[in-house]
């Protein structure tokens, strides 16, 4: 009985990992939509908050990254497809200029790809 239980739990964990990280729907919670105000992203505890940002395509925009994680992992933010990068000051909002770009999804991440986010231009 114990053997079946342990194996079942193990298999469930594997399925949960596959579903949660790859197959499951990404929650849209924490999306930031363009507004007249300051677009601020919190860099803390291994995540960008919000990590999905929707903005209108075709105009340059400034995103403010507020880094509250002192570990060096969070020091840089990179938008590889837009060739934009910035060194983030600790406990301050660092402006990151995003140039005008075509509609699409542009991932951004830290140097080690642990922090991850997506900029959606539409």
């Amino acid at each position, binding site marked *: 009985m114990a053997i079946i239980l342990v194996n079942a739990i193990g298999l469930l964990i594997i399925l949960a990992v596959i579903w949660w990280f790859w197959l499951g729907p990404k*929650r849209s919670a924490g999306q930031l939509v363009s507004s007249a105000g300051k677009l601020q992203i919190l860099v803390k505890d291994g995540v960008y908050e919000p990590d999905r940002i929707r903005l209108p395509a075709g105009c340059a925009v400034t995103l403010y990254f507020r880094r509250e994680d002192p570990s060096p992992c969070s020091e840089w933010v990179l938008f590889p497809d837009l060739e934009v990068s910035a060194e983030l000051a600790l406990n301050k909002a660092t402006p990151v200029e995003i140039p005008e770009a075509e509609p699409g999804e542009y991932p951004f991440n830290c140097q080690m790809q642990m922090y991850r986010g997506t900029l959606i231009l539409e």
Partner: protein
Amino acid sequence: MSWRNNNIPLESMREHWRMTGLFRRPIPAAKLTDEMAAVSQQGTRDKRLPSPNGKVVTLSLKLVSWERKMTKEQQSGPRLFRLSGVNCAGCTNKIEAAVNALPGASGARVNLADKTLLIQGNVNVESCVEAVRQAGYGAELLQSSERQQRAEQREQEQRHYRQLLWRSTFALGVGVPLMAWGLITDNVSVNTPAEQLVWGGMGLITLAVLVFCGGHFFSGAWKALRHHNATMDTLVALGTGTAWLFSMMVVLVPHLLPEAARHVYFEASAMIIGLISLGQALEVRARGRTSAAVEKLLELQDSSARVLRDGREVDLPIEQVQAGDQLRVRPGEKIPVDGVVLEGSSLVDEAMLTGEPVPVKKVEGASLAAGTLNKNGSLLFRAEKVGADTRLAQIIEMVKNAQSSRVPIARLADKISSIFVPVVMIIAVVAALVWFNLGPEPRVAHMLVVLTSVLIIACPCALGLATPMSVMVGVGKGAEHGVLVRNGKALQQSCTLDVLVVDKTGTLTEGAPRLTDIDSDGDSDELLQQVASLEQGSEHPLAEAVVTAAQDKQLHLERPTHFEAINAHGVSGVVRGNKVLLGNNKLMAKEGLSLGPWQERAAKLAEAGRTVIYAAVDGKIKGVIAVADPIREDAEAAIIRLKNLGLRIEILTGDNRASAEAVAERLGIDRVHAELLPEDKERIVAELQGKGERVGMVGDGINDAPALARADVGFAIGAGTDVAIESADVTLMRSSLHGVANAIELSRATLRNIKQNLFGAFIYNSLGIPIAAGVLYPVTGLLLSPVIAGAAMAFSSLTVVTNANRLRFFKPSETH
């Protein structure tokens, strides 16, 4: 117009009044104060006070008003704001107008390149921000310069380092005695109520370690999980959390487990947290060194400048210096902004920007670059570029951008990193199930050890850090040697080039023709004096070479009469009553002069790549003059270095074939493409690429830009044109081909370093994970302890950073 310009300097006014004794009769203070208020409110400067001596009182009001203003400015000081949403000159005007309309603002200046706004006067921050916002833009107060920010950053890093060390000490302080107890007594099992009590207490102490020293791993893991993300925190939290929960289960309900599996792993949890914190602390220190190059460049920026205002030298913060200001720089001081020398001469050390070891002589009209060091003379110069427009600021920006760019070679590592953590979680569960189902007893304990070890040993950081750390150090090192790499791609491509096509003029040669030979049948100085006198009227580059040669010999030049430039032939005129002709053989033939033996002499010079001109005086050829663009002194050594790097060199030039071949022969270059039009250069690069070769192009001029852009790697050399620099992948601050060799050597060293790091990280993970999963158990009979796994993981990323830091010792093979 600024108030400064309307007034006489304070000291001289006081001196003037003291000398003339006009201050002897004091004005009643109350009356003066009222009038001052009126002046201040109305902005009137020439208001007269009813007094026996109106002129004097007017002046004194000016003085008081000025002093008030001075005091106000000193109190409030200029304020610098960062703007957002600004992208054209129209925005600049709107913002400046909006801020200037604020009461108390005495001047607003927007720097479009910096996206900053400098406001003079006594205005509060909120109203400035509001004024800018109402103009349709965003503004926020910039508290400090980038250099200060960096210093703050370093201070915070230090704090974080100390915090990590403290966490590590506490965690290891709990873990090490527990581990020592286990190793010495081998009694870490829970079989009796007393053991339950003791180990329960230990469990609570370990929980304190997990919360206080490793709490951030758990909060990070939880947040990441909520975002469908998994990070290193996830692995650490799962590993240590599982070990602690299992141990607590052993303590609380030992009877549920077989006797052999009643083993606690509190020491593993505490040790892993301690070791990973220690590794992170050491990594923080090592990473600080990787950005040393940018910090060195930032240190070159001066914080103040000595500006001439109203005939006086005043020290002003660098942000207040404007293009067009006149500045004074004394011996031993740094040049604060880019400019042009107006007065004085001095040697300037430009090594920090160009890598050029020899100081450069600067005289009137010479350009100066911010950050360079004035050695021995005092210079007065006019600011041309300030703030983000200076070359130094642009270099810093370029280096920062390049440092964080991706290298194509890292694409695989990036892909793996993105799925790494969930994959490791699956592997850990699978391995644990295999041990549980197929392994020897105690199966439960083995399952837990394997699960924890696999989770802990896997290091996504080493994989993710492998490339960026090396690029960061490599690009920074390049900047130290005057090699500015645009991005990681250029860095990677530079080390796989097959062919280097080099523009001749200005790259292999000096780019300025010089008189190399003068052969005459009489006094050669006399002939040079005659032809140079004649050439004074000409604007041809060859004429400049002749006149410069005469001036170098300090020959006295006469003013020619009847000067005539004969298109495509030469020039003629009368110098001191003698008819002088200077030109090619066609001119001589046209004038009916026989070349005679001079023809043979001219042919020999032409073979050597010189441009030959015949000189005739009063109807008789008196000699030949040869002009050539001399080969750069270091070109030969640089070509040898490039050949040793395995590159084939080809010349591209718009010049005639004879002079190009002469240069090629002298430098040992096999192939020459001469008499080219700018578009031909691009075509030749494309043809070489069509043959499957990877082509690098070195050039400096506007006409090189298309070829530079077409080449796999374009190198803009020396003080190249902006267009060339724009199109190039690598900009060499120094006008020497050695820069290209340095760039290639550096790119190879960096790529080697990246490969070592990637190899190390891949090998580490692909060996570490199976070992942690227990593949060596059939041979050794042992499973990897989670503590060892934690130590290995902590130091794997440190190893990557340390290896990248080795690049800091890179030295190009050039010998001076």
